[in-house]
């Protein structure tokens, strides 16, 4: 019993909290590029479903398991992550991490919580903000698009089988784009969407003007205490006005010109090879042109959607779900492993491109200032522990690489998120159920 806990004093429940965005630094509308001294920091999160093969060390198919052999600096990649070998100076691999609150959930429900870590059960579906959106809250104002949410299946999908990795601060799913052409137009074209954005923003601007005028007219009829209340109102309206102004200003900033010729914009998920490559290309372009600094890509949802057929791309049974379920059987780890290797090849190509591209005139590469989180929300399928995870990039953001770090189950995956946010320059000391930062990475 706490004897000081007097009810009247504990009454401030849920006081409304306003997020103070440090957007003022972005008010130089015409020149959204950063000064060369402080390069932009970027974050890209990629998830694939159903998990991987986890054969034991003495298993004949051990080298088709996802996790490396060994530990720490003394590790050896298997066939699966071999494509990343030349990049390992910029890559850390993690073992043993997962979201403690998600361990008891159904094995196919964890796609929704890969970047949130929330527990979703018992008929009440309530998710929380995702890692990328925390970063977007802090950095989103610096670019035309606060963040870019992509997935093979598009939209938000059904709950527990969602087709997006991103969740708003209120825990609402953010719809993902999936069609390469549409993504390209959203980024580089003046399509209808941005025209109606413009109309709406202009409407909002004139409504806010009107409201401010009304507030001024009201002022002289009020006593001093009421005027202070009105100040609060006007400050809030002006703040929103500036936000609108900022969005509108971006509409007038000329778009970077890019050559779409090299991207397979006609790709669709039925041709997995071209499609996955096209999405990585678009993410690369978006980051390179600084149209956004935050992206997520869900390679496949946990639902029976088109991404399930992706293994067909390398001549395997067109059912990813089934491959994952069978992976424990004889000869099957090899099969799932080959597909996971294919996914790793795609990732490696993306990472390599970032590494080969200079970050403006900073003398650094894009990869040096970009974090790429890659992994799945199961280890072996249906097992919500020991996620296969790796982090690439961020060499100039204080991260040390080229090791396989293994953790016990007492370390929540959110600790990795905290370390990542801090590397992004976000002053965060916790995320969800985190207990600190991740040891060994900085």
């Amino acid at each position, binding site marked *: *019993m*706490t*004897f*000081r*806990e*007097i*009810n*009247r004093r504990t*009454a*401030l*429940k*849920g*006081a*409304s909290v*306003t*997020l103070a965005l440090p957007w003022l630094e972005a008010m130089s509308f015409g020149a959204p590029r950063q000064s060369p001294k402080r390069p932009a920091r970027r974050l890209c999160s990629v998830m694939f479903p159903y998990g991987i093969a986890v054969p034991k060390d003495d298993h004949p198919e051990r080298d088709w398991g996802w996790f490396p052999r060994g530990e720490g600096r003394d590790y050896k990649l298997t066939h699966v992550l071999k494509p990343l070998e030349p990049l390992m100076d910029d890559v850390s691999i993690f073992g043993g991490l997962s979201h403690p609150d998600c361990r*008891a*959930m*159904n*094995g*196919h*429900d964890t796609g929704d919580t890969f970047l949130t870590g929330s527990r979703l*059960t*018992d*008929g009440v*579906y309530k998710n929380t903000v995702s890692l990328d959106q925390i970063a977007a809250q802090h950095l989103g104002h610096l670019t035309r698009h606060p963040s870019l949410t992509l997935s093979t299946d598009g*939209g*938000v*999908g*059904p*709950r*527990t*089988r969602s087709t997006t990795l991103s969740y708003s601060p209120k825990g609402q799913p953010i719809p993902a784009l999936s069609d390469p052409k549409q993504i390209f137009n959203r980024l580089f074209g003046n399509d209808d969407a941005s025209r109606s954005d413009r*109309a709406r923003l202009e*409407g909002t601007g*004139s*409504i*806010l003007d*009107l*409201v401010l005028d*009304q*507030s001024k007219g*009201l002022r002289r*009829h*009020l*006593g*001093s*205490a*009421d005027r*202070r*209340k*009105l100040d*609060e*109102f006007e400050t*809030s*309206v002006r*703040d*929103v006005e500036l936000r609108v102004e900022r969005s509108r200003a971006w509409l007038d900033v000329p778009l970077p010109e890019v050559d779409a010729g090299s991207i397979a914009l006609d790709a669709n998920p039925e041709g997995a090879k071209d499609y996955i490559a096209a999405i990585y290309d678009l993410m690369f372009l978006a980051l390179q042109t600084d149209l956004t600094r935050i992206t997520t890509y869900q390679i496949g949802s946990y*639902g*029976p959607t088109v991404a399930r057929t992706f293994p067909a791309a390398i001549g395997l049974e067109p059912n990813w779900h089934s491959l994952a379920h069978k992976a424990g059987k004889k000869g099957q780890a090899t099969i799932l492993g080959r597909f996971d290797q294919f996914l790793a090849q795609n990732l490696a190509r993306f990472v390599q491109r970032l590494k080969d591209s200079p970050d403006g005139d900073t003398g650094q590469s894009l990869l040096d200032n970009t974090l790429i989180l890659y992994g799945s929300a199961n280890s072996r399928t249906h097992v919500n522990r020991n996620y296969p995870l790796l982090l690439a990039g961020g060499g100039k953001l204080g991260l040390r690489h080229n090791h396989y770090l293994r953790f016990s189950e007492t370390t929540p995956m959110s600790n990795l998120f905290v370390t990542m946010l801090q590397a992004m320059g976000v002053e965060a000391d916790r995320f969800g159920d985190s207990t600190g930062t991740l040891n060994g990475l900085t």
Partner: protein
Amino acid sequence: MDRLDPDMVKGRDAETWHDALNQLNLGEMPPTKADQPTPAERRILADWMTGELQRAAEAKRFADGRVTMRRLTRYEYRNTLRDLLGVDRDFSKELPPEPLSPDGFLNNGATLEMSPTQIETYLTAARRAMEIAIVEGDRHEVHRYVRTNTVTAKLPTKKVAGHIPVNPEFALDVTRYPRSGPFRMKLTARAAIPAGAGLPRIRISLGHVPGIVHVPHRVVGEVELTSEEPQTFEYTGWMEDYPQAGDVAFGNTGITGMILFLDYLDADGKELRYPDRKYVRPPAKPRKGQKAKPRPEPPAFGTRLEIQVESLEFETPFHAQWPPESHRRLIGERAEGESESEHARAALKQFLSRAFRRSVKSRELKPFQTVFARTRQAGHSFEEAMREACAAALVSPHFLYRVEARKPGSNKPQPLTDHELASRLSYFLWSTMPDAQLTRLASQRRLHDPGVLAAEVKRMLASPRSDEFSRNFANQWFDLEALDRVAVNPEFYPDFDNDLKEAMRRETIGFYDQLLRHDLSCLDVLDSDWSMINRDLARHYGLKPLPRSNRFARVPLPAESRRGGVLGQASFLLSQSGGEFAHPIKRAVWILDRLLDSPPPPPPPDVPELDSESPDLAGLTVKQQLALHREREACANCHQGIDPWGLPLQHYNAIGQWGETAPVRIGKKKAKPAKPTPVDPTTTLPDGSPIDGAAALKRYLKTERREQFARAVVKRMLAYALGRSLDFGDRETVEQLTNDFIEADFRLRKLILALVNSDAFQSRQR
């Protein structure tokens, strides 16, 4: 201390007095070498200082000027939009939650804040509301589904990984539907109820089947069946409030639509199952060599407790008429010979005067006409332009705030205009904007006429809208939100169901509502020979016999019943407890604050907490722990005046049930209540009155403290009605109303009438 100015109101030493009070309470002053006051002297001094400091605080608030411009609360915003537009939808859901004011109110103008996020949310809500209220084009395609027999196929039945399966007795597939918009469902059902059995219920839910293991859904409502004759129930709602399927067919169910389904429950909430009904599941295949078992005929209807649904109907989007009422109300028909801009002007004028709750001058109309014209010129339709102009009004300070404009110059109180008075009345008794009649009377300037005013108050209290007054005032007076701040520890109370909290809340709101509806003596709050009970609560309280219905009804209680008055109600007993043990201090502070208007001062800083897990306290009853607590100098001064008020209620445990023994924490952390110990509810109040138990406390309050109670009621209601903390300038009003209230035998209706006739209510002050 001798050098301090004893006048804390006019003097300049209030801050220093405040420090001195803390020092005194901590036992640090006077210094140990000096002569020490006796505990009694110490308390007299502390009480005097506390009282004077309170007076000083009120005086300062008064001198600073009052906040009279009040933003609408979330619930007022919701109700106001509903009545303004004629759209029954809650547009307040996205707004951030609101803090309680220091004196416990949600509607205090000084506490109600504004933020950029809030403005953005208002704007989004305004546009969404106008999209619904004003329509374009022809009626949308209507999807209508009816079922007269049941299906239960396709739904998961096993519990997997924490997902609770649904296994309804009746289900309806809604294959095509709009993603948003209104729906209506109609249910016709009957029930065979054996004599004496409780009344069964049907729970209606709407959701979808995303996959193999769980069915996201939300409950639409619960209906209670009372007869063998078919009864029809109707619910309306909004598609977007319910979980919906994606566009892709999912898993092996192949369902892309939504599902409306019914669970049958008995009076105690247990599921009613009829496995003998033939349609429920196909018969199991017989094993090899065995014959299929014949299924027994279900018994005839009427021979057992049984629910039968005659039909279930679902229609979406549901519009009673097209265009909907809101559209007609806002836009109307264009008169012959009227130009489009004239039409818009007339419609806007009408809308603005309702939105701003007063008459609107032509000059004020201009900017809204400009928004209309600009949108129209940008190539949008007439309807779209009207939406945009109306949405602008919904983020105007004239809508979002209740503005009472002063004539400049004078500092004296000024009478309210009739429209302002109409608003005050309406938000006081209805928590929403004035209706057509109030507005008409205000326009005719008749509302200040005492006869008219009295008739209006009577009419308003008779209207179902005054339910909002009962709900919001009882909620804030009795601090019912505190129920949500207490987590009941399931290790201590394994059978406690959190849904009971809602029943507890409704008991107390219903109790207050009865006082108001039947003009009973408000002293019943202190003790009563009746209460508002439903079956779930009666079971929780151990009352017998159990009522048949789970609807709340007024029931007589025996004299000195444990459940008489608010002090016998679980809403108070649980919310002012710790979730494990009864908490006499919280309960005492609540009584002092909410019923007697003499809240104890908050504890001084740096007071050490009594660590209930310390070995010194293991095995002690709460009363013994408190006694130990009071031995400490720092705590003694205040707690001698607090603890005795809570101790007589020790028979009520943390969830409000009566027991002759109470658990005692033994050992260290996470110890279960292994040792029940007899309760000792005797105490001596600060004024020396000996009290033996809850009944004695209630009797004492009802006889000895009625005047203090009357003042407490008056102050609470006045602060609620004015939407601000009371201060120095309100003392006379409070005394006058308190006298009136006592003279009126504590009848709330008389108090309300006196209150709305008071100068404080009828004038705006500095």
